[in-house]
C-alpha cells in the first residue's frame, strides 16, 4: 500500500497518468456498485450499458455527426475567445483609463449568468452555429481577460527595472519581460476557459440546435434513454479532462521555476 502511494506521488508522466486512471477506475467501481442497488434503469444504468450505448452511437454514425457539430463550434469559438480575451487583457493592462472605465463593465458582465441568456441568443441568431458561437464566446472569454490583465500587471518590478537599466524600449520590455511573465497566467485562464466553453456549448445546444452532444443529451433524456445521456456526458467529460491536462502541462512547461 505504501509502495503504491509513493509511486503515485512521483512527478513522472507515468505516475500522473496512473493517477488519472486510478481515479476513473474508482468512479467506475462506485458507479457499478450503486447501479446494483438502484435497479431502476430510468434513473441509473451501469457503466457497461453506457459503453454499449456509446458503441451503438458510433456505429450508426450519430456520434460522428454530433461530434462534428459540437467540436467545430466549441473549438472555433474557444480559439476566438482566447484571442479576443488576450487582446482585451492587453488593452486593460496597458491603459489605466481603459482599465478604470472598462473594468467595472466587464466584471458586471462577468457576474451575469450569461448561460441564462441562451434562449435569447437563439431567438436573435437562430438555431445552429451562430448562436452557439456567440454564447460560448461570451462565457469563455472572461477568464482569459482577467488572467491576462492580472499576469501582465503582476510582473516583478525588479525585472522591469533591470530591463530599463539595459536601455530596453517599452516594446522590448513587453516582449522580453512582461509578456513571458504573464504567459503562464494566461494559460491558466485558458484552462478555465476551456471548461466554461464546454458548459456553454452544451447549454447552447440544449436550446438551439439539431445536432451536437447537447442536442443528443436532450433528445435522449426525452426518450428516457439514460444510457445514451450518460454516454454523451462521458464524452464531454473526456474532452474537459483532456483540455485540462494539456493546459496544465503547458503551464508547467512555461513556468518551471514556480514549482520549486
Amino acid at each position: 500500500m505504501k509502495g503504491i502511494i509513493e509511486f503515485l506521488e512521483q512527478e513522472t508522466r507515468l505516475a500522473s497518468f496512473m493517477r488519472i486512471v486510478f481515479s476513473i477506475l474508482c468512479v467506475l467501481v462506485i458507479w457499478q456498485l450503486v447501479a446494483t442497488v438502484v435497479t431502476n434503469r430510468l434513473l441509473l444504468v451501469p457503466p457497461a450499458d453506457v459503453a454499449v450505448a456509446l458503441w451503438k452511437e458510433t456505429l450508426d454514425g450519430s456520434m460522428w455527426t454530433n461530434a462534428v457539430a459540437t467540436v467545430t463550434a466549441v473549438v472555433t469559438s474557444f480559439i476566438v475567445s482566447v484571442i479576443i480575451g488576450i487582446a482585451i487583457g492587453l488593452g486593460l493592462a496597458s491603459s489605466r483609463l481603459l482599465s478604470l472605465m472598462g473594468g467595472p463593465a466587464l466584471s458586471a458582465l462577468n457576474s451575469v449568468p450569461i448561460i441564462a441568456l441562451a434562449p435569447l441568443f437563439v431567438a436573435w441568431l437562430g438555431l445552429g452555429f451562430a448562436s452557439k458561437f456567440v454564447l460560448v464566446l461570451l462565457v469563455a472569454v472572461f477568464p482569459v481577460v482577467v488572467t491576462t490583465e492580472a499576469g501582465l500587471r503582476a510582473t516583478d518590478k525588479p525585472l522591469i527595472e533591470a530591463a530599463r537599466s539595459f536601455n530596453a524600449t517599452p516594446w522590448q520590455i513587453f516582449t522580453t519581460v512582461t509578456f513571458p511573465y504573464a504567459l503562464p497566467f494566461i494559460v491558466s485562464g485558458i484552462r478555465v476557459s476551456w471548461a466554461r466553453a464546454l458548459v456553454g456549448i452544451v447549454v447552447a445546444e440544449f436550446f438551439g440546435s439539431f445536432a451536437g452532444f447537447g442536442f443528443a443529451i436532450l433528445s435522449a433524456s426525452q426518450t428516457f434513454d439514460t444510457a445514451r445521456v450518460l454516454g454523451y456526458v462521458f464524452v464531454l467529460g473526456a474532452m474537459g479532462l483532456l483540455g485540462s491536462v494539456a493546459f496544465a502541462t503547458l503551464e508547467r512547461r512555461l513556468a518551471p521555476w514556480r514549482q520549486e
Partner: protein
Amino acid sequence: MTALLRVEGVSKLFDRKGKPSVEALRDINLSINEGEFVSIVGASGSGKSTLLRIIDGLLAPTKGEVLVDGQRVTRPGRDRAMVFQQDSLLPWKSVIENVAYGLTLAGRPWAEASAVAQRFVTMTGLAGFESHYPHQLSGGMRQRVNVARALAVDPRILLLDEPFAALDAQTREIMQSELLSIWRESRKTVLLITHQIDEAVFLSDRVIVFSARPGSVRQEVKVDLPRPRELTLKRDPRFVRLVDDIWQLIEAEVRQGLKAG
C-alpha cells in the same frame, strides 16, 4: 586624473499623495575617477539606492545633475550597467541567455552576443552552468550571473546595488574577493552601494559615508590598504580600525533608525 563620473548638487524629493514629499537626497556631490572602486555606505533610509538609480538614469534628480565623461545623464546608457540585488534575472532564460540579455536588447545578433556572454560566464566562474536556469542555481551563483550580465555590455562604470546583501556570510566573503579579481581583470570603474562596512572597506579605494533622512554625504574615507587584497586583510589591525571609524560615524543613525523603525 580626470573624473569619469561626477554627481553635482543632486537632490531628490519623492512626492506622496496628500502628504508632504519625502526628501531622499540633499545636495550630493561626488566625483569618481576612471578605474576607481568607490563604495557608499549608510544606514537604511539614507537614499543610497536612490542615488545609484539616478546615476544609472532610472530616476531623474529633482535638482542637480549627473555627468559621465562630461555628458549629462538623462536615461540609462551603454556607458553604465547596474548589478541588482537578488532576483532580477529572467527566470525563463538560461544563464547564457541572461548574461547575453543586455547585448540582445542592443540588437546584437545571437552568435555574437552569446560568444561575448560566454567570455563573462567563464570569467565569473559559471562555466558548465550555461544552460541552467536561475531557479536551479544558488544565491551566490545567481549573483555571478547578475555581475556577468552587467559586464557583458562592456560599460565604463559598473553600478552595484547591495549585490551580496541576500547571501549568507560565507558566500558573501567569497563573492567579495571574486569581485576584486574580476575588477582587476576588467579594469572597470565601480560604484558599490552597501550597508556592510567591512565589505566597503575591503573592496574600495574610497568609502563615502552617507547620513540618513535626508541622504547626504557625511564623510569620505580613503582606504589606503595595499592591493591586491586577500580575505586575510580583514584581520589586519589597520582594516579593523577603518571599519571601526566608519561604524562610529553611522552608529548613532542606525540606532535612531531602529527607534523610528
